[in-house]
């Protein structure tokens, strides 16, 4: 019988990126290339720029994808930046992204990694 234990991670940041539908895939690929371990996508509806663009607003999809990426505080700048570039967030209406501090996180950590860190 092995006792179950939990590893709590600190120095964690959450990058949230809200973009138009179908844009998430390339952004996640960029985030992973920059070292992010994984991402979660939610579907959502958003509004704001679309209304203010008038007729041009048709090019902005109301359906959004919300990408959540958990990264370490050392990676955060690099991942943040490559997601920005991959998502072309400098285009009007393309989306918005932000970083929030995360107090702690826990997930599956392979035993070998755990042992190495402990040792």
């Amino acid at each position: 019988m092995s006792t179950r234990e939990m590893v709590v991670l600190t120095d964690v940041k959450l990058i949230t990126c809200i973009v138009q539908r179908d844009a998430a895939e390339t952004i996640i690929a960029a985030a992973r290339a920059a070292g992010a371990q994984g991402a979660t996508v939610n579907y959502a509806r958003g509004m704001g720029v679309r209304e203010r663009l008038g007729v041009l607003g048709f090019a902005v999809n109301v359906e959004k994808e919300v990408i959540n990426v958990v990264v370490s505080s050392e990676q955060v700048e690099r991942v943040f930046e490559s997601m920005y570039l991959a998502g072309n967030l400098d285009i009007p209406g393309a989306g918005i992204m932000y970083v929030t501090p995360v107090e702690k996180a826990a997930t599956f950590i392979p035993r070998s990694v755990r042992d190495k860190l402990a040792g």
Partner: protein
Amino acid sequence: MGDEPESAAQRSRHERLRYGDFIREVNLHQQQVSYNQLTPHLEADSEGHYKDYLPGKLILDKADVGRLLGPFVSMRFIEQARAVLPLAIYLALFQMVLLRSAVADSWLISFGLFAAIVGLMLFMEGLRLGLMPFGENIGNNLPKKSPLWLVLSIVMLLGIGVTFAEPAIGALQSAGAIVDVRKAPYLWVLLNQWTDILVLSVGAGVGLAAVLGTLRFLQGWSLKPFIYITVVPTLALTVYLGLHADLHVIIGLAWDCGAVTTGPVTVPLVLSLGIGIAAAAGKGNSSLSGFGIVTLASLFHILAVMSLGLYVASTITPHEIIASATQLSATAPAAAWWQRSPVMEILGGMRAIIPLVLFLFLVLRVVLNEVLREKHIVIFGLVLCVVGMIVFNLGLTYGLARLGAQSGGTIPAAFTAVSTVESSPLYGFMLGVFLAMIFAWVLGFFATMAEPALNALGMTVETLTSGAFKKRTLMMAVSVGVGVGITLGVLKIIFAVPLAYLLVPGYSLALVLTWLSNEEFVNIAWDSAGVTTGPVTVPLVLAMGLGFGQAVSAVEGFGILSMASISPIIAVLSTGLWVQRRAQLRTRLLSQMPADSKGAVA
């Protein structure tokens, strides 16, 4: 852990000060701006109330507009180009390499194809922005607010409206000009003088199908009995018409309409309405409820068109038609300005969309008393729809139809003498017919593989059958089916086989297979025929068939599309039976094995 807020704040301040680390991590030039500087500052009036903030309109400079629209437009353009260009290139290459004749009017055709791509792109976008909000709004609200009979009658009218709006229906109307009145008087009269009534009866068939499909949603009826009671009388009527001396020529037209009506307008609009109704009745859970309408829609109007043919036959005799036609061609010197090329397409495009929109708008305002949100974008979408339809119609006339007719007219040069091709026949009869068959098969196979709707269907099917029916298997089955169907259709024209000889055994076989298969596969198989015939394939194949028929001087060149509809049904049903049988065999094998080795096999 457990930092006090103060020390956390200090730490983050400390982090921000590590400028060297920051620079090493960052490649972009970052400029920090306080968000406070960008948000509006509300000012209180003298009583201390804050006024509501109204954001002004964003004005973009030209570069930003370009960056906003550039990727948006190019993505959609490429999507449509992918459906059109491979087919066009294939047709042109086949004509130049194997038939050794240059593509005539190549500039005009290229321009036409470009127009078709642009038109489709605009139309699809307009559909999404302009028409779909209506469909969704009505689908969600109508069943909640109105009694069932009103819902069903609106569904019926909508079925008629969407048929007129279907882009490929124009191809059918333009096909009428080629028919020789002396050889097929009733076909000529249906396509030339009764065109509107023809489309109307097709629409009525679609409407009725939508009504029954909706009822099927609500009651959870099986699709099988619907298929039996529709196909059997349709086949009976086909046999009756096939025996009739003058009427057998309209069989091809009647069956071909099926492929035309189930296009990019009908399917999503009718489906969104049906799904809305089912959801409102609380019965939208069945993942299969979306199927069936398309099938019924493509069967009912066959009945409708054939009945119309019978009606026409009972009112006028062939001699009267021929007399009036010769009189017409003698008295009418030239088409009026509104019947000539660019104007006709413009009027056609407007006539297709505007009544549908007016009807939807009336339902929304009068019956539902709802207001549309984002009006300017919806209006813009509708304008896109109309413009897209017009441009697509132009592309249809100058590009798709012309190219299809041309290659249809040139291919017979492989095995018989054709006036436009020197030294034809190019090959021996057997080899030539064989080449034409290969050509037809490849055309059908790849046109279907490229159809985006099939991809979507494949994914649905894979999820529905939890992986038993793979997406690839379905796509292969349908594409091979369409390839074989188009090949059979071409053979039908070459050897002048009456269409009934092919349709009656084909559909009888399909009925037997339907009886053997389970409900899910029946739904998938019968619907797969409808989705494969998109707005590009239909006009191209229709025009090809007509040109082909003209070149080998057949009476009519219809029938290819109907063969392309029945073959995938049979292909998918048999594949389904095979998949099912394999699954059964495996479970039987498993049950025979000792319990401990089961895990290893599974």
